């Protein structure tokens, strides 16, 4: 057998593997060195808290708080953007850290940015319904901003489940939404590649909520990890070894981990309605979504719509988002197909320019 090259490869090797025992020892030593360094790095990690941008509370109803992010420069836009995040995770993903912040990107371009923080639901919130979340909390925040800014309609940016809420609100109150932006938002909840949807179809959601009351965050997290159990667990933590000697990369990792596992419990009644009407009923497509006593018809969405989805999204497959185009009444519909995943759309380095720039440019064209 011919001698191996410096990387342990041998030109005569047949089969899919081409490494020597020495190369493997080298690889192992490299990883164990990282482990050793990791003990020091982990003790030295600095602040891995979240939130890059200063913000202030401007409105509150119950546990729901509306925050305004402090602009770095004078806001140029007269119409504010209200970010409506999902209930299932914390909204600081959009302002995770200084070099990974959609909020910062929008502020730097002169937008005026607000975000709704739903807070952490507890047992006293068990009977909050979708009407409460959409009409009371989201609607309350919208009305507050319309009054504060003296505008008829605001720019609404819905994220994931918050995008579904924003679609409902915009369909019910089109006069209050000047422009609608949806990010990684499910619309067709029953595309064949939607794993979460498949799992909810056999669930007796009445029994589920009647038993649990609120849905524990751990249960939600477990479901998300089960979407890709080998990649999101085993491979991720083996991969972590690579950065154990890199303080900055480790802090970024810890910050992301904090976000992933910092999930609120879900208010039982709202969850029951969401699963039944959206996942099991696929109500945006088939009809049958009722908020309070009003049925939601996306055909009433007549404002400009920018729909941003991620091509490698394992939570909200692209087809689930793209269905929006065929359902709304607006004649002004734009899509941005982002090369990345459900989270990468906020935190990847390419997203830092591409996403806020697209949103800003799109809004500016519609403000003239």
């Amino acid at each position, binding site marked *: 057998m011919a001698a191996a090259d410096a990387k*342990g490869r041998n030109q005569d090797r*047949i*089969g*899919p*593997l*081409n490494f020597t025992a020495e190369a*493997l*020892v080298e*690889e*192992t*030593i490299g990883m*164990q*060195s990282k*482990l*050793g360094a990791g*003990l*020091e790095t982990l003790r030295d990690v600095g602040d*891995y808290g979240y939130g890059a941008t200063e913000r202030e509370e401007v409105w509150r109803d119950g546990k729901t708080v509306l925050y305004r992010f402090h602009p770095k420069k004078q806001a140029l836009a007269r119409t504010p953007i209200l970010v409506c995040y999902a209930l299932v995770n914390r909204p600081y993903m959009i302002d995770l850290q200084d070099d990974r912040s959609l909020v910062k990107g929008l502020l730097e371009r002169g937008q005026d940015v607000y975000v709704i923080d739903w807070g952490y639901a507890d*047992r006293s*919130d068990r*009977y*909050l319904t979708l*009407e*409460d979340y959409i*009409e009371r909390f989201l609607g309350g925040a919208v009305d507050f901003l319309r009054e504060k800014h003296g505008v*008829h309609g605001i720019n609404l940016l819905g994220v994931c489940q918050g995008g579904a809420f924003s679609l409902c609100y915009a369909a019910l109150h089109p006069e209050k939404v000047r422009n609608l932006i949806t990010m990684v938002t499910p619309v067709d909840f029953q595309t064949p*590649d939607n794993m979460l949807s*498949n*799992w909810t179809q*056999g669930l*007796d959601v009445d*029994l*589920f909520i009647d*038993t*649990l*009351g609120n849905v524990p*965050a751990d249960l939600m997290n*477990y479901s998300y990890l089960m*979407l*890709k*159990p080998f990649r999101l667990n*085993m*491979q*991720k*933590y*083996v991969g*972590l*070894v690579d950065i154990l000697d890199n303080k900055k990369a480790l802090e970024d*990792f*810890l910050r992301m981990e*904090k976000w992933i*596992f910092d999930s609120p419990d879900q208010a039982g009644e709202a969850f029951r309605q969401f699963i039944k009407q959206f996942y099991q009923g696929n109500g945006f497509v088939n*009809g049958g979504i009722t908020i309070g006593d009003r049925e939601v*018809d996306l*055909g009433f969405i007549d*404002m400009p719509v920018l729909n941003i989805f991620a091509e490698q999204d394992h939570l909200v497959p692209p087809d689930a988002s793209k269905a929006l185009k065929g359902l709304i*009444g*607006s*004649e*002004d519909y734009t899509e941005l197909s982002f090369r990345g995943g459900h989270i990468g759309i906020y935190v990847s380095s390419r997203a830092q320019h591409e996403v806020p720039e697209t949103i800003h440019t799109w809004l500016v064209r519609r403000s003239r």
Partner: protein
Amino acid sequence: MPGMGGMMGGAMPGMTGAPAGWREAMAFWNNAAMGIQDHGVRNVADRMNAQASTWWSEMQRMAAQLASRNADAAGIAKQWRQVMDGQGNQAVLDMFKGLQGAESHSLEAWYDAARPWLDAWRRETHGWLGMPAFGLAREHQERIQTLLQSQVDYQDRLSTYNTLLLKASQDAVGVFETLLAKHEEPGKQLTTARALFDVWVDAAEQAYAKIALSDEFRHVYGEMVNAQMRLRQQVQREIEQMCSVFGLPTRTELDAAHRKIAELERMLRRQAAATKPKPAAESPVARKQARKKAATSTARTTDGKRPRSR
């Protein structure tokens, strides 16, 4: 890090000798990391130890056996199947269980916590469990019988669910072989154990996704969750029964109070919205004109549509 180099043989700069096994290194590392105070860091270290130890260690071991040898995709896959069989089904199920975290309120964690109580009930009632209920304690007996039957049902459903998860891991070996075959050409060969591990992860995900998206999984998963909910309801009923004996408020009573408050708040909001003076709205004509103008400035637009119900 004092001591670490000794443990790891050649792992630390300046040290000589062969490195220790990965699992041993991880165990040592995790022990040393115990002293880290930060809760978030500690959690990550725990998850890393739980998830990056067993399977990566096994893959390294297999790679070492295959180093400097010609092995085809089928041979490697066969050897990996033996490794998995050697680990036993429980190791695969532990991997899935490990996703739930130590302090979890997830399905299995609940069952682990409840099982000692359920088993105790089963032991106490063993003698009369299968007997027809009659006499003064008949309702109590019926409730316990229903509860313990719910436990049996749940265990059956859980077992069926676990069987599907195991099938996914078995199917992964076949996919592993297929993916490995794509690396047989020169230039595409895998040159590290890590690359081999990554191919197995790809295979495991592909096999798992196929099952997780199937109608069978939908049914089996739903049945498993529903069965646990029925069991939980029975347990909760017993606990409420005990609470009422001691005059303690129950969850049902608290829920009723919360429901009343939520309904009252909703009613008030609706009334306030109905009576609130509405600010001057933008005229529909002005809105339409503004939106028409915006629509002409966009590059990509949809065809005009009307609302379903308009």
